């Protein structure tokens, strides 16, 4: 397994603004997942993007993947206070059983 590294470590914005967080990884991947963790709902899967995809949308979430740069970004548009959480990326390796390795995450604070 390999670890993704999220950047920035912390991000503070106002409601209605967009939030962008980034993830870098070191070796070839099959896919990359983003998870969110808050006190209310625990750790929850947000979105998966495969290595042959460049961009994916889900509601207010937009994920991009650049395999040449070994990086991904998660954009949350029109942020809400309920988006306050830690966000983790988890690169998935190519074959066989896969374990996810989480970095320290990006802590997002959305203020009303």
């Amino acid at each position, binding site marked *: *397994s390999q670890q993704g590294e999220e950047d920035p470590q912390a991000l503070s914005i106002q409601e209605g603004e967009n939030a962008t967080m980034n993830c870098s990884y070191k070796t070839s991947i*099959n*896919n990359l*997942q983003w*998870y969110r963790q808050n006190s209310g709902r*625990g*750790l*929850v*899967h947000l979105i*998966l993007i*495969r290595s042959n995809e460049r961009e994916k949308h889900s509601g207010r979430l937009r994920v991009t993947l650049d395999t040449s740069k070994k990086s991904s970004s998660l954009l949350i548009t029109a942020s809400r206070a309920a988006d306050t959480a830690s966000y*983790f990326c988890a690169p*998935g*390796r*190519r074959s*066989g*059983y*896969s*374990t*996810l*390795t*989480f*970095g*320290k*995450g990006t802590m997002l604070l959305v203020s009303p």
Partner: protein
Amino acid sequence: EAGVAQSPRYKIIEKRQSVAFWCNPISGHATLYWYQQILGQGPKLLIQFQNNGVVDDSQLPKDRFSAERLKGVDSTLKIQPAKLEDSAVYLCASSFGGVSTDTQYFGPGTRLTVL
């Protein structure tokens, strides 16, 4: 569908005592994971089961931690004896097949405090 269940939710023990956590995964999920999450860090995988066999336990401190998955369903994680640095949230997760594209579903966790 019912989610991943864990118990207890909180546990306080003294160092050198033993403790056990229980997890019931989502019905039909073959893969079960135990993670340790220390405050300010991301979850760290301790052990991964595929049915009742171990797929990955490379980060499990085997001198004090043990885990089993009975009949490929429920699982228990035990710490004996506990150390101060074991204070953390222990998360259980399950997924359908265990491949990298699977979504992992997490339980609420057990918060362990070792005094």
